[in-house]
């Protein structure tokens, strides 16, 4: 978990950046990419907990319903953990497609949870835009995360089960 704790300040920085410099702009969903990276690099209980924490922080920061993003990120972590037993995400285009799909999944899960809590929210076409942008930027950010991990603890870049 120590290796991945860096994602907490990265997420907070990202959320601060999003709320001040680029409110309303379609930015890649860093939390989804971080969860994808953690689940793929080294699946562990700590990774699940950190995914929950990242979702919780995003919920608190954005003033949303607490638990919705946390639920979707934990779900995404479990999904990647299961999928990664059979599929290798070494190809950038596969990573991009998966990141886009996972962003869409996150949006749909949040939408379902909000609908279940009687909050009538529109199923926005911007969800597709967010998924596309996240997919396009996924290879760059995953390379950045790999570098970040290597800088933090030299010699463990790419270290893990795969």
């Amino acid at each position: 978990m120590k290796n991945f704790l860096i994602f907490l300040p990265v997420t907070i920085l990202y959320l601060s950046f999003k709320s001040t410099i680029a409110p309303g702009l379609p930015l890649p969903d860093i939390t989804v990419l971080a969860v994808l990276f953690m689940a793929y690099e080294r699946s562990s209980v700590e990774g699940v907990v950190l995914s929950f924490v990242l979702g919780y922080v995003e919920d608190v920061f954005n003033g949303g319903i607490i638990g919705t993003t946390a639920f979707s990120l934990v779900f995404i972590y479990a999904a990647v953990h299961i999928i990664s037993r059979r599929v290798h995400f070494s190809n950038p285009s596969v990573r991009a497609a998966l990141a886009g799909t996972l962003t869409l999944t996150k949006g749909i899960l949040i939408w379902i949870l909000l609908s279940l809590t009687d909050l009538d929210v529109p199923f926005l076409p911007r969800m597709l835009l967010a998924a596309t942008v996240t997919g396009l930027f996924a290879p760059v950010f995953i390379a950045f995360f790999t570098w970040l991990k290597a800088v933090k603890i030299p010699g463990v870049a790419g270290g893990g089960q795969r």
Partner: protein
Amino acid sequence: MLSFIKRHQVILASVILCLVSLHLVSTTRKGTGGDVIVRSVLSVVTKPVQSTLIGIRSKVVGVWNGYIYLVGLSEENEGLRRTINQLVEENNRLKEELGLNARLKELLRFKDKTPVKTVAAEILGFSSFGPGGEWMRTLAINKGSGDGIKAGMPVVTPQGIVGRIVETNRFTSTVLLLTDPRSNIDVIIQRTRVKGVVEGDGSGGLILKYVRQLDDVIPGDRVVTAGLSTIFPKGLLVGEVVSVDKGEDNFFKRIELRPAADFRRLEEVLIVTGGGISMKQGKMEGTGAHEPFGRESGRKRRKPL
């Protein structure tokens, strides 16, 4: 058993945390609850980051407007360019100060005319929730419980209602915007005095609910707070009717409103700290409190907001 747990520990942990998340969703629905400590820590951590980022943005915009556009002119005009740079920079600064001055004057005028105690605050940042970023919206302001701000206090501008405080920390507060689906306000149509409830539609607009098919509402009608709840004082402008449909049922019309306040251009707001929450019904009537929004009668149309 132990080996099964060990083999599937990630899945089991995921299931447990999913259940915990669902529990959190069910306990904090329709609110912004959550752990006060986490919110306070986040607020303390992010306030300097947000302030720095806003400062950087202003500097970058200033440099971009004041210098980069001018790069590329011929060398003969170097001196002139320097002068232009200085003038542009000074002009930008003066324009910015002029804008700030005008906004503050407007706020002061509004504050003087409003018979309630208010506190001015600057906006630190906008937060949006949902993948498209439009489902739920809150904004952070630079006044918190240390300045006497409490949850539930209305947040207004001279243009109209912005929302209400939902969270306070020592230095900052969170404002739930009017357009958030969790927001609902008792309102009255200024022209016909028909009552209804305004809710956010989750995509930046407002919906006026519970207006009967018989009631007289037309596009262009201005909608103000009814003062029925104990949160918002009476007579504050909420928005303007943009469309009126028959709706899906035979009882109520479907009415869409445009918010009076332009949330994209907000920089300063006023928080009603006294009188707004516990104010007696109708206290603002006849005091001129809603004059800034223009009192009008009959079918006279207003200019677009």
